[in-house]
Structure formats: structure tokens, C-alpha cells
């Protein structure tokens, strides 16, 4: 069942595409704000510059956690694209994310510490919705296998409209977009210095940036699963979703974490219960 080729393709291509997506993101964002914006390749220049810098750390263990974050995020994405088990992918994602949090904790710095706690709050906010999404896809396609879900003829998005919207809601958290860029942000206006990444600099910060590209591609792949019945619609939908996220990012002010957690949970409960119940009834008989 495991398709190693796709996994390798992901490992090699994701940072390239992810970097380009980040560049396009910045360009569009700039246009929305009435600026010319940087070159589309700017993210690559930025990361390249980070790697040229001297590694400065509060303590060495930070680098270890950054590397673990990097490796397990690649692992997560590769497992996803190699048609792994969707639930296992979700768990691997959590593992990767925890390493970033640990890296922030390890520095014993007030700002990165608050960032770490907030990052955990964010994980706590999106995790239920992600699990519900995975289970929803299983109910729709009778399989947890990513390959089966991606190539199904079932129009998943029509069966899971609520779950799709709920997933988009938490996707904003995962992509670190306003209004939910609470633990760290890509915007110039930060809140707690730079949150989880406050104490990362130079190459290790570059590594975290690349990890984020991997993550973006993995998440867009996740969005694609909803449209697996028609690849063309799927790709278009993924692009629209990302443009929508950019729009949301630029038109919303950052909210407090309380609102982020409460609203994500409320939405997860409502769409989870309603959509899954409806699905079971549609499937016939007792839910």
C-alpha cells in the first residue's frame, strides 16, 4: 500500500514548491496592502541568508529540537504522500509539533516560553477538528489510507461540507495566519516578540522556516483530499483555499487565544456532531 516514490517526491519537491507558495503569498499580501512586494524568490534568499549567519544559541539542545521538528515534519508529510494511514499521519504531525514546543521551552526564556504555551493552546485548539476530519473521511470512503481517499470517486466535500468548513477554520491556525497567529507570526507586528521562535536564530531558524514550507504543502495536500474525486477541481480548490487564507490573513486582526480555542472547539463540536451524524444516517440505518 505504501507508495515510496510519492514520499520521495514530497521530500525533494515540497521545500521548492513550499518556498514558492510563501513567495507568492508575500507578493499577494503586498499587493493587498498597496505595496509592490518582494520577488517571488525572496523566501529562498531569506533562508539562504539565515544559513550564512553564525549559529547563536541560548543552549545547544535547542538545535536538537529544531532538527527533530524538521525531521518529523518531513516524516509526516512523506507518510501522507506515500499513502500512509491518515490517523498515523495526524499523530506524527503532533509529534513534530511537540518538538518545536520543546525547543521553545528549552531556552528558558520568558518570550519563547509564553510562545510555547500558546503554541500548545493552538495545538489543543485544532487537534479535535483534525481527528474529526480524518474520521469523517473514513466514514465517507471506508478507508483511512490516504491513497484510497485521494483516489476515491466519492465526492468527499459534498458528504463532509461542515467538516470541510471546520477544517478550513483550523487551517488558519496551522498556517499561522491572522487572526490566529498567536504563538508566532509572519507579520512584522508581533505580539510576544517572536513567540516560539524568539530564541532561534541563524541556521536553526532557517530550518524551522523550511519545515514550515513542508508543513504548508502537507496541509494543502490534506485540503486536496476533500476533492480527490476530480484532480482538476482539487487543484483549483487548493489554490482558492490558499488565496482565501491570504485574504483572511490580511483582513483580520489577531485575536486572543481564548477566542481562538473557544471558537475552534465550538465549531469542531457543531460540525463534528452534525456532519458525522448526518453521514451515518445517509449511510443507512442506525448511526
Amino acid at each position: 500500500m505504501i507508495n515510496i516514490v510519492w514520499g520521495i517526491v514530497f521530500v525533494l519537491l515540497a521545500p521548492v514548491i513550499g518556498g514558492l507558495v510563501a513567495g507568492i503569498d508575500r507578493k499577494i499580501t503586498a499587493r493587498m496592502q498597496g505595496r509592490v512586494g518582494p520577488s517571488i524568490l525572496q523566501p529562498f534568499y531569506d533562508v539562504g541568508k539565515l544559513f550564512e549567519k553564525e549559529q547563536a544559541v541560548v543552549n545547544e539542545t535547542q538545535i536538537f529540537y529544531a532538527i527533530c521538528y524538521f525531521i518529523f515534519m518531513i516524516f509526516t508529510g512523506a507518510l501522507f504522500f506515500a499513502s500512509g494511514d491518515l490517523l498515523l499521519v495526524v499523530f506524527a504531525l503532533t509529534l513534530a509539533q511537540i518538538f518545536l514546543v520543546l525547543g521553545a521551552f528549552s531556552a528558558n526564556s520568558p518570550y519563547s516560553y509564553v510562545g510555547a504555551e500558546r503554541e500548545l493552546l493552538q495545538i489543543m485548539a485544532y487537534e479535535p477538528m483534525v481527528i474529526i476530519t480524518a474520521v469523517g473521511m473514513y466514514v465517507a470512503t471506508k478507508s483511512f489510507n490516504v491513497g484510497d481517499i485521494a483516489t476515491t470517486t466519492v465526492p468527499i466535500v459534498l458528504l463532509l461540507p461542515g467538516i470541510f468548513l471546520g477544517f478550513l477554520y483550523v487551517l488558519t491556525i496551522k498556517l499561522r495566519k491572522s487572526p490566529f497567529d498567536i504563538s508566532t507570526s509572519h507579520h512584522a507586528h508581533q505580539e510576544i516578540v517572536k513567540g516560539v521562535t524568539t530564541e532561534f536564530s541563524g541556521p536553526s531558524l532557517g530550518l524551522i522556516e523550511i519545515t514550515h514550507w513542508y508543513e504548508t504543502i502537507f496541509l494543502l495536500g490534506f485540503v486536496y483530499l476533500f476533492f480527490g474525486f476530480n484532480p482538476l477541481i482539487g487543484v483549483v480548490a487548493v489554490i482558492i483555499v490558499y488565496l482565501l487564507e491570504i485574504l483572511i490573513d490580511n483582513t483580520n486582526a489577531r485575536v486572543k487565544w481564548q477566542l481562538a480555542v473557544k471558537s475552534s472547539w465550538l465549531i469542531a463540536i457543531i460540525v463534528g456532531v452534525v456532519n458525522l451524524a448526518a453521514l451515518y444516517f445517509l449511510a443507512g440505518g442506525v448511526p
Partner: protein
Amino acid sequence: MQLAQLLIFLILFPLIAAFFLFLAKKDLERAWIVKLSALAIAIVSVYLLISTYNMGGLLFSVVPAEPTGIIMFFLEMLIALAILYLGIVHKKWLVVGLILIQSVMMLWFELVYAHSVEVSSNLFIDEFSNIMALIIGIIGSLICVYSLGYMKFFHESHPEMKDRRPWFFAIMFVFIAAMFGLVFSNNILWVYFFWEVTTLCSFLLIGYTKTEEATTNAFNALWMNLLGGVAFAGAIIYLAMFGNGIMGLDTLLTSGKVIALIPAALIGFAGLTKAAQLPFSSWLVGAMVAPTPVSALLHSSTMVKAGVYILVRLAPIFQATFTGYLLAMIGALTFLIASGIAISQSNAKRVLAYSTIANLGLVVACAGIGTYEAIWAAILLIVFHAISKSLLFLSVGTVEHRIRSREIDDMNGLIVRMPKIAAMMVIGIAGMFLAPFGMLISKWAAIRAFVDVPYGFVFIIILAFGSAMTLFFWAKWMGKIITVTSDSKNIEGEVDHSEWTALTSLAGLSLITTLVFPLLSTKLLEPFLMENYGHVAQLSQDNIIIMIMMLLLLVIMPLSILIPQRKDKHVQAYMGGRTTTHDMWFSGSLGVQKKTVLSNYYLHEYFGEAKLRPAGIWICTALICIMFAATALRGVFL
């Protein structure tokens, strides 16, 4: 014949050890008795596994029901008298009332029905009992070994308390004997007897220090468990009256739901009290006043595991019944609410306690659902929880003796101050919530089990939220431990030899069981499920390989420390431009020097105990009432 002797050995040998421990007054004698008996018990429980390998369920009729039954009844009455006496002395009238009701019930049973009850095979062994025996025999023994060092230190640092170690160790071993008896008994009367012995032992151990708080909490635990005991006695009387003399677990399971559902619900209720499910969670949290090895024993290999053991045993009866769903709902809500409360707790032992309650809730949820997949998940949860939780308790105990605190915030920078124990704790915590470790495999199994049952999605949603909370409180604790406070000194010192043996063995076990989990599943769980349900649950080959890859990655990564690196430039943590000394004192307003103190988020406003616990108690009490009403109605109509 020979197998039966092994079972009898495991039940009686700890009793003999207990007797000698009660007599041994010298440290050295005690140390030898504990170590040798622990070794013997562990070896025999492993030998039992080897010799029953591939044999399925076996029933034994070697031990005659009489006069054993009479002896047990006599002992029960003695225990009842002792509890009665203690209840009157301490003016705990609830306990007095419950023990009177229970004794009258059992007396009535003995006089009126006992002769009409016949159980041909009193002892039995199958894969599930085998797994339980391994948990009790290995983890329980390790905890006893650990106690040697801990209790010595405990009494050195609490000179005001009377040193009653002979008593303490004797009770620990009686506890282990009772647990073996419980998992090997087929005769429900025997199960009941051992059940009551565990109640008594936990009461004595919780009240060990004899402080006012300890006594109060011990009685709190006692009345809740006695309430369960009353329900258990009710089940026995019901079976005697309407059950055509059925009194064996094997016959009960095959007798059909019409007869079995009401007694199963009653025993299930007893299981809920023992497994500290809401509304009965407070006894387990209160049990924290006892010395830490007691907590470890109660939480991992004995007591609460007895509660979930009996529920999992009876699961085929609960399957696809309204009673079962309600039971599952009680478990699921307990999981959700206890996980939430754990977020708000700053005391390490209380976090562990609420996490135990939560995980047992998940086991109860699986048992209530009762499908083969759910049972597979339930047994995995029992195994992995026992290992990780005992490891965590024992680490916390050792840390507590060094830093004189159980507060998580005081464990800041433990990785620098006590690197070895911190590593053990990190393994324990990772085992509780991260892929690819045991507990996460089990949660995964639980999700897969819930997907395929009616109304399963409700349980999945509860599970999804519960595990998100679980993640939050474990990760922030882990973060505290691994924070590098570069100026702290290493205060680990010499960890007591016996403590260290137990800790490393448990840490090793948690890694090894994750690695050999596929074997555990195919060799023990699948035959058990096949025999009882006719189906097997398993993870696909691909997933197992991926998990092993993850585990290897996780094990290899820390080794990267060994690679010589160039020395990186060290900078101060960003302090907003304040002048800060190297050990994080910064100059505040008016030139006052202040220490940077970092504390976790506890979110009392949302997850406070005062807020969630009453809600949980009311909801779960209501569910229990509905469960009994529904079961009784069903009994009437059928």
C-alpha cells in the same frame, strides 16, 4: 495439574512473603525478603506465560470449592468486623452502614443459597489473565523493590511518624496476592472475596501515615469501594436467586444477556467505583496522601486495574446493549472531564491521578462498547498505562525526595539538575501521549474501534477533545522538565540502588513493549479475541513498520549528542533589553533585582477542579441511575 500449582503459588507465595515481612524488623532482612520474593513472583509469572503459551483458556478444578469457600467466608466476616470496629472508632457511620448491609447480604447468601450454588472450576487462566498476571507480577514487584529505598528515606525525613515498615511491606504483598487471586478466579464468590481484600489493603495503605488527612482520605476510599462491594454482593444474590445457580465467570458469559445483564451491571458498577470513575473519582485523588509507591501500586498494577479488569471480562455481556452504551458514556465523559481537570493541576501527583482516572475512563468506554476491536484497545490501554504510569509515579517520588516538592513548576530545569531521572520522566511522559508509544497506539485502536459501532461518532468526538487536553497537560509538563537552566547544579546524587533498579527496568519496559507490541498483539491478544469473539483486531503490517521506524528515529536522535560539534556562540535569552545576569536575574523598576520565574498555564478559569468536577459528578451519577433503571426495565420485560 502443574499449571494449577503455578496459579496457587502466585496467590499463596506473596502471602507467605507478607508473613515474613511482618516479622522482619531489620532493614537488611526486609531488603532480602522483598528482593527475592519479587524476583520469584516475576519469574513465575513469566514462566506461567511460557507454560500456557498457545493453550487458550484453561479451567482448573483442583481446588475444591469447600472448604475453601467456608474459609473465605470466615475471613470476609473477620474483615467486616475489623472495618466495623474501625468505622465505629473513627465515627464513620457511612462506612459502618455499608459494611453492615454488605455483611448481612453475604450472611444471608451463605445461609440460604450457598448450598445450591455449584462451580465446577474455581480457577482459570487465559491470555487476558496472563497479561494481568504479568502486570501484577513484574510491575507490582518492581514497585515493592522501589519501596525499599523510598520508605527508608521517607522515614528518615519524617521522624515524627512511627516507622511501621514491616506492616507496610506485608500489606503490599497481601495486595499483590489478592490481585493474583482476582485475575485467576473463575468462581464469582472468590472474585468477590479478593475484591474485598484489595479494598481493605488500599484502605490500610492510604491511611498508612495516620495523619488526619490520610485517615479521612482512607475512609473516603473505603466507603466508595464498599458501595461497589454492596453492588457486587447484590449481583451474587441476584445470580443465586434467578441465575439457576450460575456462579462461574465462564458460565455467566455464556448464559445469555437475559440472565447476565443485571448482575453484570451490578458488578460493572462495582468496577466503576474501584476504577475511580466519576462520580467516584475523589478517592483516587485523595489516595495521593499515601507514600508514593502506594500511589504507583494503586494506579498501575493493582486496585484500579481490578476495576477495569472485571469490566473488560464482562464486556461480551455489555456489547450492543443500552447498559453497555451508558457504561461507555460514563467512561468517555470521565476521560474528557478528568483530562480537563488535569490541565488545571499544578501538583505532579494530582496530574498523574487525574490522568489515571482519564485513561481508565477510556478503558471503561471500550469495555462498555464491547466489540472485539474495543476490547483489543482496552487491553492495550491497560498494559501500556500500567508501565508508563508506574514509571512516572516512581520518578516523581524520587524527585520529590531531592527537591522536597511535588509542584510541576518546581521541576523547572530538571534535565540539568537530575539528568538521569529527568530522562526517565521524559520517557514516561512521552509514553503517555506521543506517537509511536503505547498509549497512543491504544488511543488509535480505540478510535478505530469506535468508528465501526453505532453511535461511535459521539465517542470519537469525546475522545478527540479529551486527547487534545491530554496533549496540553503532558506537553507543558515535559517542557518544564527539559528547560535548560544552565546555572543549576546537578543535585541528583546517589539514587538509591533499589529505586534505580525499578526505574531503569520500567523505562526499559516501556521502550521494549512499544517495540514488541506486534508480538504482544499476535501472540496474546489475538488468540484471546478469537476465542471470545471469533474475530481478531490488528494493525496492518505497514503501520507497524512505520511505527517501529518512528521509534528507532526517536531513540537514535538523542544519540546525536555524542557527535562532536563545533562550539556554538552562546547568547542570553531575550529579556526585552533589560540588563540580566547569567542566572536570569534582571533589573526591574527602581533598580530592584528580580529573578525570572516561569510558570505553566493552568487555565483555572476554564478547567478548574471546582468547576468541572461537580458537573462530572452530576452527569455521571445521572447516567448510572439511568443505566440501572434501563437494565432493570429490560430485566422486567424479558
